[in-house]
């Protein structure tokens, strides 16, 4: 009886909190449908006949920021960077866990170390290096993301590989697999849950990353965060309506991704943390 009372109480507390959590997004959505001058003064009022602007904010926003190409670049960079990270960091993690040498353990510790270094420490020199090596384009930045993502990804893969017995690898070798086949046909399928976790953590990071792409490719190519910041930063007085519309458009892909992969995301975050 007492427990049921508390559970009902908790339910209502959670309900109120949920409304508070969704409220900010809701405010942005309703304001994206209002004329720009009626936003700052009364953001919490629903659009009415006088203030409703239809999709005008969306069309101006998409035009001034080049949102569609930003969406394209964000997708391109995120998908290929995450793919490259999964392929190469899983191989590296397996190799340096299985082959014991001073170099490999130094590499492992250097990778772990890179995780706690703030980006500001390397941002200036890294963007210079990227510039000199002609990596300042959407293909080159994939290599940069591999380098920056390697720390966390190798760390998580090796954490899991340490628990995988070698016997299956040995059996596959005896059956005539070469090392490449051993990894991709025997080891990688076992790593799949970790690969999903690594993919999700990297997707969340790269999709939302602002400063790295801004410094490396920002002059010629905009990703979504750069496009949003551009609207605010380099455009004199800010068109609040267009800004609201761009915020909504930036949130939509994230929400779609979340609803599709929710199970994996929540699991990934939980298991990613346990190994940390």
């Amino acid at each position, binding site marked *: 009886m007492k427990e049921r009372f508390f559970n009902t109480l908790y339910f209502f507390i959670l309900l109120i909190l949920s409304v508070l*959590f969704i409220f900010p997004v809701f405010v942005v959505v309703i304001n994206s449908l209002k004329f720009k001058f009626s936003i700052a003064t009364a*953001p919490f009022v629903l659009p009415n006949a006088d203030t409703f602007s239809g999709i005008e904010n969306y069309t101006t926003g998409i035009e001034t920021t080049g949102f569609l190409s930003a969406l394209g670049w964000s997708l391109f960079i995120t998908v290929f960077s995450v793919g490259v990270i999964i392929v190469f960091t899983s191989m590296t993690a*397996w190799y340096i866990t299985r082959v*014991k040498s001073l170099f490999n353990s130094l590499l492992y510790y250097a990778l772990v170390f890179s995780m706690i270094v*703030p980006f500001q420490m390397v941002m*200036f020199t890294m963007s210079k290096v990227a510039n000199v090596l002609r990596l300042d384009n959407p293909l080159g930045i994939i*290599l940069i993301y*591999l380098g920056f993502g390697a720390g966390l990804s190798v760390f998580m893969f090796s954490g899991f590989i340490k628990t995988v017995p070698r016997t299956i690898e040995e059996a596959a070798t005896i059956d005539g697999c070469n090392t490449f086949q051993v990894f991709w046909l025997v080891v990688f399928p076992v790593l799949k849950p970790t690969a999903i976790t690594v993919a999700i953590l990297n997707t969340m990071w790269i999709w939302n990353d602002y400063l790295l792409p801004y410094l490396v490719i920002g002059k010629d190519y905009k990703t*979504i965060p750069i496009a949003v910041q551009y609207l605010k930063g380099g455009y004199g007085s800010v068109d609040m309506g267009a800004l609201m519309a761009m915020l909504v458009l930036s949130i939509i892909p994230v*929400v779609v991704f979340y609803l599709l992969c929710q199970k994996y995301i929540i699991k990934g975050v939980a298991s990613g943390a346990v190994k940390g």
Partner: protein
Amino acid sequence: MKINQYRRYFPIFVAPCLVAFLIAFVIPFVMGLFLSFTEFRTVSNAQFVGIENYIRAFSDDSGFLESLWFTVKFAIISVITINVFAFFLALILTKSVPGTKLFRTVFFMPNLIGGIVLGYIWQVIINGVLYNFNYSITSDPTFGFWGLVILMNWQMIGYMMIIYIAGIQNISTDILEAAKVDGAGGFVTLTKIIIPSVMPSITICLFLTITNSFKLFDQNLALTAGAPANRTQMVALNIYETFYSRNGYEGVGQAKAVMFFVIVAVIALAQLYLTRRKEVEN
């Protein structure tokens, strides 16, 4: 013998990752350390100046120390509030309350939204509230400070909650049942069983919240961009501005970045050491 057979595959298995890591991290890191002791505009015309940049980081303007202090205050308050809220949400959500799955989904959602977008979302909301009192978020640094705290809570609570939930669900029900039989009340169960058992989760949550609070940049840039008069500027933004908004300060910016790195590393490692020790004891 088998190891030798593996070794031939070094160029395929390790080289791509190694090259990327060298280009993106190792070389820039070493160059950064070196350049912090030089004066430079571009990387090629660096002149050695000893520790002058480190002195100038403090003497040329008070912005760096101020931003450091602002960041420390922000980090302390955010780390405490985020972890307390996340932990209690996790406690409630591991009880048999209806709709826990849906609530989890909702609380986690803000974490997926990027920092720039989050900053503008909260700017509109906070300005909307303050407008009624004829203020805006940039009229007083206090508004910016608490705005950042609220934003950070909104973003991080869900993530930490997931980690705490995983920790709480790992506690064996036998122990909890036994405690109940022995007549342990809710408070005793919480402090003597649940908190010690989730120490690994506490370690990782503290680590993530501390490092993320210190490194905060996007949210800061979008919410206030340091206004008014750089008084809501956090360290990461201060370093960025030193590099890119002032001519002739590249060396000073790099020196600040080195100090920032040392501070973050020392705090993170100290925290890991202290909380890990607690894990072993229990």
